[in-house]
């Protein structure tokens, strides 16, 4: 695996210049997530309305992979119902766990497929997973 398969232009762009990196005003829900061993520390803000993610954003610090994964996740999930969001997050986890995805599942992930190669960098898997696990926690607790 080439390192450039992980640090793609898309990932670099989202990590350094995310349009979603802001504290959402009027967020109905927020969830904190962190990787204690490395210091990735994020908070996800979600505005839920009638079971739909009307808007979302994030704040916090972390490596390029965790920051980009958070940004791309939010981009992917805005406009989805909570059920759809949960399903997509589960597909993402499945992809990282090296399970084979169905073509329609791949389609649902959109840009988040950029992290497919992270499975070949075991030390960084938890960075990519952090926002998705944090979101699943938010959805499960609400």
């Amino acid at each position, binding site marked *: 695996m080439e390192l450039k398969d992980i640090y793609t232009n898309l990932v670099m762009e989202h990590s350094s210049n995310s349009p979603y990196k802001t504290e959402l005003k009027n967020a109905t829900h927020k969830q904190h997530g962190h990787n204690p061993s490395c210091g990735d520390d994020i908070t996800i803000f979600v505005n839920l309305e009638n079971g739909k993610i009307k808007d979302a954003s994030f704040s916090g610090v972390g490596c390029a992979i965790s*920051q980009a994964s958070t940004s791309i996740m939010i981009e992917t999930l805005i406009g989805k119902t909570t059920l759809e969001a949960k399903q997509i997050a589960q597909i993402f986890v499945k992809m990282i766990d090296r399970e084979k995805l169905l073509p329609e599942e791949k389609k649902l992930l959109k840009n988040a497929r950029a992290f497919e190669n992270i499975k070949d960098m075991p030390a960084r898997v938890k960075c990519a997973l952090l926002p998705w696990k944090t979101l699943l926690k938010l959805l499960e607790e609400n």
Partner: protein
Amino acid sequence: MKNLRDEFPLIAKNKFAYLDSSATSQQPKCVLKAVDDYYKKSHANPHRGTYCLSVEATNAYDFSRQKVADFLNAHFEEIVFTKNATEALNLVAFSYGSFLKKGDHVLLSLMEHHSMIVPWQRACKTHGATLDYIKLNNNFELDLDDFEKQLRKKPKIVGISSVSNVLGTKNNVKQIIEMAHSVGAKVLVDISQSIAHEKFDVEKMDADFVVFSGHKMYAPMGVGVLFAKEELLEAMPPFLLGGDMIEYVYEQETTFAPLPQKFEAGTQNVGGAVGLKTAINFLEEIGFDKIKEIETELTKYARAELKKLKFVECYFTSNAKNHENVISFNLKGIHPHDVASILDSKGVFVRAGNHCAQPLLRSLGLNSTCRLSLSLYNTKQDIDKLVEALKYAYEMFFKTK
């Protein structure tokens, strides 16, 4: 003299630059062979059997303890084998910590590893004592004025590391012990980061407790050492309970074995102890003066080369004589984990994170750092390789912008 790199199979066989010896050092052939020989020729459960093989294993274990005692200039009874420095620190905090009373103070330096901080946190909470910290000055060194001020609270225990595992700052342990003793405190010194690089004489230093891990000084993982003055060990209650640490066991009462067995419950890591003895021999054969010469030169070179890189921020003291083997740094605008991954792809192994020292990093306003650490098998080429890889990482990130 033999080429030192050739003594380390994992270093000699590979082209990578291993710059993480502060986390764990690689092992020389002689240590690997000694452990192998022990298991092939002398292995049995020590202290238990009356047969010759068990006696041989007991001897192997005792000789290793004597070697450690000689190395530290201590007595045989004052050396307790543990799993690692962490277990030794837990032992002291649990056992000597049980003498703490409500209102007592324990004083640690803010540059301590979690393995020093967390056990004393619990001991203080359990016994109603207060945990205080010695601050750092703005040159990444301990603030001795603050230390003096904190000593007015008359702490019962002062906990300090000889060298910071994050900053590489070398503390003046002798002076700290003298100052602490002047108010009646006992001093616990974690020498894990310095033991592979500098000899420690417990008598000359007048240290009360000293701990280190074998695996940071070319011995196998799974063996560590606690030294404590005999009268302290005699007074302290045992830590772990079980076989081999007892004298008589009745249904409701037990009397304990003499030192050092009192603190070594259960079957011990004899192979590890044999490895540790061999590692000490290895260091003594090279000689600590020679080790110092090699490593001081490497540290000096690494400091200078990193300082040349404008995009690198370093966190070390400006007093080079107080700086040993460990350098923390960051690339401006790039998270250390990304840096470490990119360095990895170039065959340069450094650690990234908070290095088990969150309070220190927080006090410096840092979330995490990259850390390189140097050992006697490293070369200037390793540092050159690191510098090239850092340039590559920087370009990779900032050419996309």
